[in-house]
């Protein structure tokens, strides 16, 4: 009897302490670094990797071990290329399949992983072109300077297909056992370079890999299944809400003391937090992503879209058909919104289970017009820049040019990539299932 009373007293007292601690923790916010692009982490996700050598595009990956100890890394390329239903060799997407697939063909979305493993020695940075891979790591045969000396061991394959679009996910593992460990020592960046030799243009965009942090001491003994958040979390949960600041599609931005003008549009890439690399199953559940969009008048709009395994899309294609036709009618269009910028809040609709949060990771890219308007009579190199008084018109198509001018330049756009900010994490979790040799 007294034991029972003691238990209850302890329980009530503990509850009071917990409530007090929780209250003070929320009052003196430090941060919520569960998912972070500024802290080293255990899992680094590069949501967008692009290779298309025919069009001069490749991605350079940077990955670094931030500590003095040897670190094992297991990485997974996810090939998200779609292929034509009537020509499995032909790569396509939902925007271009009517032109690249044989008549009657559809574009079937793909999700194919390729994994590889290597070590990173003390504070070692590594970089590689996704198109070429890295057959020989710098310290495969040469010892590092540590005591005992550390070696890289391993190689990095090139992209499994060209063209290639997809993601890269790297997980920190114990170099001895090859099992995931509760350390946060990896950081990474991706640089997407577009080059065009004949017209001598270059375009570059860069973003930080998204880190998912491990919880110290929380590994549960099942090395195949990584619990990202949820009741048995081994890693902190994925974000609950993304706050995405963006320009509305077609916004004409004037800069340089009102002397340079050109339009901008944006691409959003979403990948699920969850993945089953062991069974090669597409993301276990299709997520619905809800959008709340605010313009500079504080007017609110909303829409939604679906995500199964990987999606990269123009903002205007979220609520209209893929392709430019319906863009002016999108709620992401500047013509619909009336202001140049907006803020969108993205939320994944959760499922019912403990590990059915259906969370996503996000990346925003912007595409700014950078072609030059020239008079219609001009041709090629002989053409002079259109004499627009006190204003340089940057263009993507001829329709962007005033006075019936034409748009010149092979790379008619310049791009940027930025990580997306977020608020909080979900109470439910996601799972990444990986093969262990």
């Amino acid at each position, binding site marked *: 009897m007294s034991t*029972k009373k003691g*238990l*209850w007293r302890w329980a009530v007292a503990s509850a009071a302490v917990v409530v007090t*601690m*929780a209250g003070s923790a929320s009052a*003196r*916010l*430090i*941060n*919520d*670094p*569960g998912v*972070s*692009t*500024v*802290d*080293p982490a255990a899992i680094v996700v590069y949501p967008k990797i692009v290779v298309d050598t025919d069009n001069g*595009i*490749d991605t*350079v990956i*940077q990955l*670094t071990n*931030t500590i003095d100890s040897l670190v094992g890394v297991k990485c997974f390329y996810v090939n998200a290329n779609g292929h034509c239903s009537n020509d499995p060799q032909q790569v396509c997407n939902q925007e271009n399949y009517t032109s690249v697939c044989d008549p009657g063909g559809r574009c079937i979305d793909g999700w194919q992983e390729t994994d590889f493993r290597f070590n990173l020695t003390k*504070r070692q*940075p*590594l970089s590689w072109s996704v*198109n070429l891979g890295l057959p020989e790591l710098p310290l495969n045969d040469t010892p590092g300077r540590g005591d005992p000396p*550390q070696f890289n061991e391993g190689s990095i394959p090139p992209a499994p297909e060209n063209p290639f679009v997809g993601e890269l996910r790297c997980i920190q593992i114990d170099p001895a056992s090859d099992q995931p460990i509760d350390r946060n020592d990896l*950081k*990474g*960046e991706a640089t997407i*370079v577009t*080059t065009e*030799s004949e017209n001598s243009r*270059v375009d570059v965009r*860069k973003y930080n890999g998204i880190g998912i942090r491990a919880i110290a001491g*929380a590994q549960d003994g099942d090395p195949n299944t990584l619990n990202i958040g949820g009741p048995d979390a081994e890693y902190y949960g994925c974000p609950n809400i993304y706050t995405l600041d963006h320009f509305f599609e077609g*916004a004409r931005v004037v*800069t*340089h*003391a009102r002397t*340079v003008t050109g339009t901008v549009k944006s691409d959003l890439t979403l990948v699920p937090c969850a993945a089953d690399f062991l069974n090669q199953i597409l993301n276990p559940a299709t997520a619905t992503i809800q959008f709340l969009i*605010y313009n*500079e*008048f504080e007017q609110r709009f909303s829409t939604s879209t679906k995500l199964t395994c990987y999606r990269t899309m123009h903002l205007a294609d979220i609520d209209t058909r893929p392709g430019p036709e319906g863009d002016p009618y999108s709620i992401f269009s500047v013509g619909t919104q*009336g*202001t*140049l*910028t*907006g*803020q969108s809040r993205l939320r994944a609709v959760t499922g019912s289970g403990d590990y059915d949060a259906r969370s996503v990771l996000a990346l925003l890219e*912007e595409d*700014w*017009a*950078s*072609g030059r308007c020239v008079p219609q009579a001009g041709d090629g190199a002989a053409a002079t820049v259109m004499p627009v008084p006190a204003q340089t018109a*940057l263009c993507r198509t001829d329709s962007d040019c005033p006075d019936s001018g034409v748009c010149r330049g092979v790379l008619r756009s310049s791009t*940027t990539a930025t*990580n997306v*900010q977020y608020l909080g994490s979900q109470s439910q979790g996601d799972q990444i299932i990986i093969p262990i040799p």
Partner: protein
Amino acid sequence: MGKALGKCCVWSLLSMFAAVLMTAAAAEAEVSTDLSGSIIVWPKVVFDDGRDTVIQLANTSNSLVHARCFYVNAAPAFAGPPGPFNPPRWQETDFEIWLTRQQPYHWVASQGRFVNPFDELGADGAGLDAGAIPPVPEGFTGELKCVQTDASGIPYGGNSLKGEAVIRRADGDVSKYSAVSILANSDLASDAPERELLLNNTVDNDGEFNSCPNTLLFNHFTDGVPDPVIGSLTPIECTDGDCPIRTTLTLVPCSEDFENQIPSRVTVQFAITNELEQEFSASTTVDCWMNVPLADMTAASGTCSQDSGRQCASDQDCIDAGNYGFCRKNGIFSFDVLGTTSAYTRISPVGLDGGVIGVAEEKHFNDEYESAWAAYNLQQEGSRYDATVGVIEGDKEGPVVDVIVIPEI
């Protein structure tokens, strides 16, 4: 049944305990580009050298948010190159804005944004005007800092602001980064003296605003390394210093005294590791605002890649002289010295100096001197406050508390 209920309660409580402990353990990062904050810093704002900056600022809360913003112009005092007789201006200009719930906002540094309720829909100024924002003068290079306040101008720890910056060249090339957020402890952010914002909130210390990081983690291509994509995907021969990648590092001290216009000074140490795990080091002083190409960090001059007898201080010197390639310098960050494509640099303030925050920007050239910029945020480790607890240096004793002093209204 009673036993079962009791066990259930105990397990629930233990789970709650675990959850609280996890929250405490999670609290490591000090400033962030992933979250909204109460102080937002754009370390690099330029209207110079053919580039202009578009600022984006948003209120992520459902309440009206006030903010005071401070431009710091670090351009040289007189026309011409900076030097001992042409020091930076350190000129501060401030303004106030009010953002309605969830309101996104933008302006262009060279143009500002004025209150005009008659802006056409879809035009640059369309939207609810948040207040008059002044333009910066041509030649501006510096930073922008916005502090969330209440209606009376007192700092307020609402953590409701987020921001981005797009830097656009006149030919259309763009680069973009996220502004750095310093989160506030909402209980103490308005503590007296209200105009002194103490960056001393850490896991172990109940302070006003989150402490700056102790170390910045900076992954970069080695200076002058031939771009691996341009070299492999085009017939261009990227050898002998052609197609270089140049990285420019921008650092801003966390402490700033806008009231007395006193610039802060921080000496930082660079610990560089290349892909062969070889270690190098260097140091420099951040005097209020630093924006330095890695090439210039430890080497003032070099020679042109196409004419090794021609001296140069920058790539432009070689180009202007008649396309003699690019300026090869043997600084510590150079490809010629480090020998690998990329490197990892840890940037740490020395002794009891305050913290710094920053952003990096890469410029990729092809052999025709065409180029493109890409900006990215730096990563971080530790807290400047926690790392200096108990440290004694001469007559000074840690911990270091960075302070931002804002002027009275």
